[in-house]
């Protein structure tokens, strides 16, 4: 792998398959991709097209080079390209208890070298209002009669890289909490819920999905008859879509990280014959792509999803498409 560096930042990463394709350097990362995503999203929020931002996690590399916006190059970059550019919350958000416009589920990179999530709590301190602490990394809020739930899937373990080993709280306790929050939503007459956590429930590439028995699909799907349920995941650095048992899953791994599932040997993993169909690449191998979604919520209507993408090296580098249509 060859990393190009400018002012300390890896700006491009290419990989040469020395056995199968010697001499050919395939690009799997460019720093411009993530910056483009950030600029687009900030533009949409500032223009009023999007009220706030939901991120499914892995927003910094690690905490080993600093923990805050002041001493971490990663948190500083996130602040410079996103957080400080977002306008303050409006009255509607304020009355819903939202004191910021950026909400994340904690990913494994946020706890790498920062087990107490000091960086996260310093950058977005308003998460503490929802009960987030170093010992409790999950939270929920309601906005306009829609429930948002953020869970914590765990730190990285190379022996099982998508295992739900989150321990604050543990999986079983998180599922109990999830059920309680969804039951409460139902009781309040809420019709829609978005559930955000980092590791993917369904996945056909790269690191693969959360293995059983701690895969939450059945717990979530049990509520699909009463609520419109959408799950946002990440972790595998590519984009995949699933619609399973009435639950929509958006695996949003194209926000800026290296797109390693495009590399030989990683484009697909072995899945059972009856595995749910993937609805984005639809059987084609994934490509280097940076993207984000806009979610339009309207009472009484099916939620609409629009994805906008940048594919470096493509004959059609920019595109927008409606999802799940």
């Amino acid at each position, binding site marked *: 792998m060859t990393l190009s560096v400018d002012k300390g930042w890896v700006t491009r990463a290419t990989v040469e398959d020395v056995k199968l394709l010697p001499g050919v350097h395939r690009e799997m990362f460019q720093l411009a991709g993530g910056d483009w995503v950030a600029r687009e999203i900030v533009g949409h929020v500032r223009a009023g097209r999007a009220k706030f931002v939901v991120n499914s996690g892995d927003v910094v590399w690690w905490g080993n080079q600093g923990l805050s916006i002041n001493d971490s190059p990663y948190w500083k970059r996130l602040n410079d390209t996103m957080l400080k550019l977002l306008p303050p919350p409006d009255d509607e958000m304020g009355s819903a208890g939202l004191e910021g416009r950026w909400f994340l589920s904690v990913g494994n990179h946020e706890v790498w070298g920062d087990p107490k999530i000091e960086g996260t709590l310093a950058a977005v301190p308003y998460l503490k209002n929802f009960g987030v602490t170093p010992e409790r990394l999950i939270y929920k809020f309601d906005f306009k009669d829609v429930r948002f739930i953020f869970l914590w899937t765990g730190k990285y373990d190379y022996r099982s890289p998508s295992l739900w080993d989150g321990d604050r709280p543990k999986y079983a306790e998180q599922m109990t909490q999830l059920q309680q929050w969804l039951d409460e939503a139902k009781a309040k007459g809420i019709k829609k819920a978005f559930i955000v956590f980092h590791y993917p429930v369904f996945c056909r590439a790269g690191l693969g999905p959360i293995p059983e028995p701690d895969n939450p699909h059945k717990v979530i799907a049990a509520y699909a008859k009463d609520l419109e349920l959408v799950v946002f995941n990440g972790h595998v650095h590519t984009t995949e879509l699933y619609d399973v048992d009435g639950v929509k899953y958006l695996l*949003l791994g194209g926000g800026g990280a290296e797109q390693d599932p495009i590399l*030989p040997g990683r484009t697909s993993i072995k899945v059972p014959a009856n595995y749910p169909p993937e609805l984005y690449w639809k059987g084609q191998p994934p490509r280097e792509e940076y993207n984000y979604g806009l*979610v339009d919520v309207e009472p009484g209507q099916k939620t609409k999803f629009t994805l906008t993408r940048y594919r470096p090296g493509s004959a059609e580098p920019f595109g927008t498409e409606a999802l799940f249509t």
Partner: protein
Amino acid sequence: MTNSPSAKPALVTVEYRITAVPPNSNLNLPELPMTKNSIATGIDRRTLISGMTAVSALGGALSTAAQAQTTAASGAFSFAVCGDTRPMMYLPYNQGKPDLVKLFVEMFGLVMPERVAEAVVQRDVKMIFDPAAKDLVEVIMPFMSTK
């Protein structure tokens, strides 16, 4: 029988409001002629007054409908969503900074024991610095695939 300037604006208003009635509306409105000529020839004072009353009622109905629509729309909102937005590593880039090797060892340490990681970094990670500016410009390192 003439199109008097004083009557015309009211009639035009009536005509416009009527066209604004949504299809299948249940409002019980008087049928009003829709052409300028027929308005001019067919309308009398009674029709005009009842038409204006209807317009007033319709205006209220439309206002209520608009309010309902606003209420429905007020529950609507949009948000942006994304994931895996982190960049790759930041590497202190001035030549001679000892942190670089340490950083690579820490990174490789995620997937292998630290002692092995140290050996891999020493053996396989090549750093290239700009000869003039002395800045790190390229790193060549192993990348292991799953197959």
